[in-house]
């Protein structure tokens, strides 16, 4: 069977499955639309959280990034998993006990102020829109690379699918499609990894395989360190970034993860407090399967690539090289006209430019795996992008229909009216996301880091202090969130877009990169909140009682 046919088949079957689940789990009330009726089992919620969380970037780009960064890529591995420890221990159980629908709900009620609620809504919208644009783009890219359709057609197909199950099913529809999408994506990620691990080391477990000996008896990592040195790259197992920056980036990603609204709302969907803890555990376990495999793929792919192309004759390279050259993701320029491929760190002499996304997507072809594995990978990448997009769209629609319309603009709106408003805002959010997918703003790459920085600088301190510090009042929390948000925006636009006079890496404050600055802005938020809070009056008695009550789970 041809590759094209396999891909259409895999994508067709998985998409039919998602639509079937959406029809079966149609939402009938606002509670079902926002939080799936709070009746999701911890293990299903764990899978849904994992799919929600792992985006096109985790699936397609992360292993490739690590492949080129080596040790420095650890910031993503530790950052994007360590945040779940914070979520499970510091946020999820208490927010579940609080038991409303959204993050601005908590901020607005705990800080007894609609100003706080509006600030939270603005943060949630900025974070979610920057993120969702990248997902729709990812859907379009996968379609165009694998199915040879126009990138915009790919975005339209993705929009139609998400529109169908997000608008119809709300959180309930999204939850159960995400469970299916997790299964598809993890299977698609693991199968090629296991095959390649067996090929290269004889060990079927990639996590052990990349620390084992290759067929020539040499440890893979020693071999890669050696190859990297020869070609002039930094040693794979040690980094080139400063320790301080690695520290700050890791912390910003961890805290940002714990503050992302589309991840937090998932914990409103379970029945009780103990289930919120359990599902955080399941979620991290399901995520860890992919995140501990990614560094193994990074090593396998890099060794394979160097051995296949370095100092080889260009006209004798295998067919996949040609295919990926056509997409523009691989470019070869025979600078010294010797007909051989020189792949070197020195940009003057290097003849091969490789897009990092290839490392996962072309990996099965480089390792000469069968066609159905490649088709599976396409379906998995789509599952990863669609599940994350849907989760983000729900946050956007709930922010508009629940936090803005129901809580501020028109509090007397009926249950039915609110449900219609939720569906209409989901509809427009999909259109807007699709628009950004087709006309991606130039800042998409920069804004993913921004989304984490903003979540770390705004939500995380406000929520944690809302639970753990009874004395925190609205003046403190609001000023902290605003300072954190503005400081993060200032630093990011200064160094990424050259506003406010711009600057280079020499001008970074304390040598911290914009990616790591979220940690700094978070600390500023904490300091400002605590200072302002002690200069103003205590929160009212009923708020202190609310804090008491969310700390203790009810009798079960």
């Amino acid at each position, binding site marked *: 069977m041809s590759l094209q046919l396999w891909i259409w088949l895999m994508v067709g079957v998985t998409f039919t499955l998602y639509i079937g689940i959406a029809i079966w789990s149609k939402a009938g009330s606002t509670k079902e639309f926002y939080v799936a009726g709070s009746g999701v089992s911890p293990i299903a919620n764990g899978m849904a959280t994992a799919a929600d969380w792992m985006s096109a970037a985790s699936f397609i780009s992360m292993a490739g990034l690590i492949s080129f960064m080596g040790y420095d890529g650890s910031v993503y591995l530790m950052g994007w998993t360590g945040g779940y420890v914070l979520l499970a221990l510091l946020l999820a159980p208490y927010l579940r006990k609080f038991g409303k629908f959204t993050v601005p709900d908590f901020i607005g009620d705990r800080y007894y102020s609609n100003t706080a609620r509006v600030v939270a809504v603005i943060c949630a919208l900025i974070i979610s829109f920057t993120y969702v644009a990248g997902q729709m783009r990812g859907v379009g890219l996968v379609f165009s690379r694998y199915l040879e359709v126009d990138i915009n057609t790919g975005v339209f197909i993705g929009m139609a699918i998400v529109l169908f199950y997000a608008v119809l099913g709300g959180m309930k529809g999204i939850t159960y499609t995400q469970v299916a999408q997790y299964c598809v994506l993890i299977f698609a990620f693991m199968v090629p990894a296991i095959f390649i691990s067996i090929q290269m080391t004889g060990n079927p477990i990639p996590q052990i395989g990349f620390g084992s000996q290759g067929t020539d008896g040499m440890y893979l*990592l020693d071999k890669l360190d050696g190859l990297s040195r020869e070609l002039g790259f930094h040693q794979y197992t040690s980094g080139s970034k400063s320790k301080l920056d690695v520290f700050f980036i890791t912390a910003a990603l961890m805290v940002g993860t714990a503050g992302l609204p589309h991840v937090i709302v998932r914990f409103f969907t379970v029945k009780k407090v103990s289930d919120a803890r359990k599902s955080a555990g399941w979620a991290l376990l399901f995520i860890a399967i992919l995140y501990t495999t990614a560094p193994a793929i990074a090593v396998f792919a890099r060794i394979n690539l160097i051995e296949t192309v370095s100092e080889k004759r260009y006209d004798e390279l295998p067919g996949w090289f040609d295919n990926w050259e056509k997409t523009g993701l691989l470019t070869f320029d025979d600078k010294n006209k010797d007909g051989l491929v020189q792949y070197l760190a020195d940009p003057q002499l290097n003849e091969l430019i490789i897009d990092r996304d290839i490392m996962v997507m072309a990996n099965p072809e480089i390792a000469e795996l069968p066609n159905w594995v490649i088709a599976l990978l396409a379906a998995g990448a789509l599952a990863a992008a669609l599940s994350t997009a849907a989760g983000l769209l729900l946050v956007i629609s709930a922010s508009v229909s629940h936090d803005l319309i129901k809580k501020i603009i028109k509090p007397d709106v009926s249950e039915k009216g609110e449900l219609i408003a939720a569906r209409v805002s989901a509809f427009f959010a999909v259109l807007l996301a699709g628009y950004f997918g087709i006309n991606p703003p130039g800042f998409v790459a920069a804004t993913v880091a921004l989304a984490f920085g903003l979540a770390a600088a705004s939500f995380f301190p406000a929520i944690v202090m809302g639970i753990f510090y009874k004395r925190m009042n609205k003046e403190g929390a609001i000023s902290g969130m605003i300072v954190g948000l503005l400081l993060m925006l200032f630093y990011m636009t200064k160094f990424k877009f050259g506003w406010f006079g711009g600057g280079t890496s020499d001008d970074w404050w304390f040598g911290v990169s914009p990616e790591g600055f979220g940690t700094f802005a978070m600390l500023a938020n904490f300091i400002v909140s605590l200072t302002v809070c002690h200069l103003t009056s205590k929160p009212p008695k009923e708020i202190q009682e609310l804090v008491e009550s969310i700390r203790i789970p009810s009798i079960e």
Partner: protein
Amino acid sequence: MNEQLAKQYWKKNIKYLIILLSIWFTVSFGFGIILIDELNQFKIGGFKLGFWFAQQGSIYVFVALILVYILLMNRLDKKFNSKRSS
């Protein structure tokens, strides 16, 4: 009586959090970043130890930490609930 119990429950919870988050910090920021050069002098299989903590070990410990927290809190909830209802 109930207020007293709630205070005890919260104190115990905070104690668990401090212990577990110290481990969380040690394996990731400690072993994976600050002490990496020292740990990289040791090897397990083909992995330098510091590198292994940064790309594998810390993640396994994270999963274990949440698991331990679930077990500890379930036990605490049970004790708390039986005292509260009696």
